[in-house]
């Protein structure tokens, strides 16, 4: 556990990407199986330990120390695992160090009731760093600024293999990845992805910035609408059918309607959308409707009828045993069209190709798309192969401008991680008429969009203008004549029954601080309600 803890500590404190890669490859070289594989799974968050839950940790610590002292500590540190690791009363003389595999194996077979006792024994024996690593490992909350792609890159570097090969294998592999390491070290052949209907890493687009426009020759590109759904991959392979999210999560269970329509032997890249059952053709419903279908393991008949799903197909990656990814976009598109003609799948249609003459035309299309469910345009190079990741200069996305609203800061909460000493999580509201005149109603939360300098200024505002505290949350001065106005940018608005205001914003972030604007001139709820379709 100490070697793993040291790795995590160094990863947290090493700012450079190359430095992190070196730490990981050194670790792979030094640490044997299955230890290193479990470490990989912990960092890529592919490890799930079912018998232990974070709530148990709180109970365990409250048995050991005064709750008020613990809460003061937690409020200061801002991270549960770190707080517990620091305040845990270690036992002198307890010096047995569990390895990662021992922890994982023991907890895998333990019953829920036994888990706390086991964890307690390990916590007693470890030092604060070791405790922190253990807690992060077993609660799955490892956010150390290392993306799983970076780990795959380190694995690729360690075995001197192209990263695509690792990504492709990934979803067919299980921790602790011993066959993968054996292949990377050259002692065995490449593991065969035994999985039928595997996920293929997706190709992503770069946002178009002003400076890019002159480099993009529109004649060499094909434009398509960018739909406001979720990117999926529908794979049907000798009778095995799977629907994947763009990160490779299997979401088949919630979409039997799509699965039933996959009457082909192919891997299709497309957008998952919900259509209006009352009208002919696929009339796309707002993202909110799709949201009802997401994040569930199964789906009711009623929901299937009221919120039917379909896929708007963008691309064809594989068909009847043939990998098409090396072909050009135009060639793949032709194959896709042929597949549609041959199989005529229900619940799938082809993404329309939009003809554009020049940037002025494109600008107009972006500003006034024919449907609200369109969130911009895509530009795909005619000759581009399908390359996983975000290759430069192949695909572009040009999203419509975000919506803006002026809101008043209502509550602030201490951030987590890097921002734990700042009030960096903000709840904001807009005006509405209440019984006693105008009042603020919360409409959203934002955690990003500001610079470090702006964060410091908001933090100071919060500290200087606190009127009430509830645990880690502070309420700030907010009235018609005092209060901080923020300009918030967001991508869309949904109806919501969970929010007092009845609306929920998508991707809200702070775009400007309006120190100049009196709070009473912030926007009203009616303005947002007007945006709901």
């Amino acid at each position, binding site marked *: 556990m100490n070697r793993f803890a040291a790795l995590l500590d160094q990863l947290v404190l090493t700012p450079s990407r190359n430095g992190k890669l070196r730490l990981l490859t050194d670790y792979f070289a030094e640490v044997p199986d299955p230890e290193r594989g479990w470490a990989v799974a912990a960092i890529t968050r592919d490890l799930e330990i079912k018998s232990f839950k974070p709530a148990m940790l709180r109970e365990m610590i409250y048995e050991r120390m*005064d709750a008020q002292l613990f809460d*003061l500590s937690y409020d*200061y540190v801002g*991270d549960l695992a770190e*707080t517990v690791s620091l305040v845990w009363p270690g036992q002198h003389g307890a010096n047995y160090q569990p390895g990662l595999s021992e922890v994982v194996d023991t907890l895998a077979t333990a019953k829920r009731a036994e888990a706390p006792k086991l964890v307690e024994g390990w916590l007693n024996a470890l030092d604060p760093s070791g405790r922190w690593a253990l807690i992060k490992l077993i609660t799955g909350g490892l956010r150390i600024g290392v993306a799983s792609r970076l780990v795959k890159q380190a694995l690729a570097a360690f075995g001197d293999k192209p990263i695509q090969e690792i990504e492709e294998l990934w979803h067919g592999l299980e921790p602790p990845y011993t066959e993968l390491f054996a292949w990377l070290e050259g002692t065995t052949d490449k593991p065969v992805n035994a999985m039928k209907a595997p996920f293929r890493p997706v190709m992503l687009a770069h946002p178009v910035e002003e400076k890019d426009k002159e480099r993009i020759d529109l004649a060499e590109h094909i434009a398509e609408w960018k739909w406001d759904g979720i990117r999926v991959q529908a794979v049907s392979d000798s009778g095995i059918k799977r629907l994947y999210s763009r990160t490779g999560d299997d979401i088949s269970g919630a979409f039997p309607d799509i699965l039933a329509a996959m009457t082909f032997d192919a891997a299709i890249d497309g957008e998952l959308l919900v259509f209006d059952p009352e009208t002919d053709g696929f009339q796309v419903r707002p993202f909110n409707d799709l949201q009802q279908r997401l994040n569930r393991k199964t789906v009711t008949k009623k929901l299937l009828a009221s919120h039917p799903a379909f896929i708007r197909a963008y691309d064809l990656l594989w068909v009847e045993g043939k990998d098409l990814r090396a072909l050009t976009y135009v060639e793949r598109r032709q194959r896709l069209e042929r597949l549609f003609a041959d199989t005529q799948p229900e619940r799938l249609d082809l993404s329309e190709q939009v003809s554009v003459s020049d940037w002025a035309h494109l600008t107009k299309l972006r500003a006034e798309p024919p449907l609200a469910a369109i969130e911009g345009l895509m530009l795909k190079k005619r000759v581009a192969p399908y390359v996983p990741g975000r290759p430069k200069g192949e695909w572009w996305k040009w999203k419509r401008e975000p919506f803006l609203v002026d809101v008043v800061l209502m509550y602030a909460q201490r951030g987590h991680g*890097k921002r734990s000493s700042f009030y960096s999580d903000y709840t904001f509201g807009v005006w509405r008429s209440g019984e006693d005149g105008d009042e603020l109603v919360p409409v959203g939360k934002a955690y990003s969009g500001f610079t470090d300098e702006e964060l410091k200024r908001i933090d100071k505002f919060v500290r200087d203008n606190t009127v009430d505290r509830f645990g880690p949350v502070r309420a700030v001065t907010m009235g018609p004549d005092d209060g901080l106005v923020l300009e918030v940018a967001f991508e869309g608005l949904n109806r919501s029954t969970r929010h007092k205001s009845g609306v929920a914003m998508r991707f809200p972030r702070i775009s400007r601080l309006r120190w100049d604007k009196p709070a009473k001139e912030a926007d009203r709820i009616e303005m947002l309600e007007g945006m709901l379709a």
Partner: protein
Amino acid sequence: MISPADLLHPTPAGLYCPPGDFYIDPVRAVDRAVITHGHADHARAGHGSVLATPETIAIMASRYGEDFTGTRQPLKYNDDVSHRGVQISFAPAGHVLGSAQVVVQHQGLTIVCTGDYKRREDPTCPPFEIVPCHIFISEATFGLPVFQHPHTRDEIAKLLVSVERNPDRAHLVGAYSLGKAQRIIALLRLMGYDAPIYIHGAMQKLCDLYKEFGVELGELKPATIREKGRAGGDKQDFAGKIIVCPPSAMNDKWSQRFPSPVSCFASGWMRVRQRAKQRGVELPLIISDHADWEELTTTIREVNPEELWVTHGREEALVRWAELEGLRAKPLSLVGYEDENE
């Protein structure tokens, strides 16, 4: 017996003693000041008179100039003076060179004000002494159970290991110029590191002063890179070397002159991982000149006062702890002391 609050109580200018008519570590200019130690937030210039240890007086003179006060009243540890019937003496606080606890006695009542203190190894000053008292006024910079500092020598060893492993890189150790810097240097010497140690220009005067008071710092050289017509070393001469500088210089352009510097920061705040990350520290050294939670609570138990008053830092938790111990305690809520410079 005089009531404690009549002998010492907080005012906007600092802790005031009405019968003796003096302030302890006042944050504004006053007629009579008793100063616990030389850190800027405790020792300010411009008082009518200053009563402090000879070391603290020398530190103040070196920082603020010879005219930092009207009258100087040096008082050695364990000597005492009487002023308007109030007896004042100093006991070592173990915080920095010259740091003292102020012991105030009047009409049978004893109050001890610690200023800042610690209980860990520090070759640059005598260790903290327990003084029995009725009222104990403790600082609380690290007054939270999360602050349990590791062994100081283990932290120094971490630095030495890193220096050995990275012979191509300079180690830039950020340390507060008064106290922390000299303590790190003295500990490195005690642990057998005898190569020259390079210091930032802002530390020269205080290091010289420490040497005058007999603290062994070994060979110190200025951390300057040779420029046209000026003395100094080549950039590469600093590879594998230890450079001590004020924390503020670490993220400065200044630090970029050295070969791929490893930024180290010696501070009790480094206990919290995200604090280290925030400051861009690559090698955190958890070395503090303030008592950690364990030291605070042990000291209070050893002193065993009738009542505990808590000043600057995280008063709330220490007061809560005292409550659980059945010890009467209150926060003094003094303003004007900083703890970020630890």
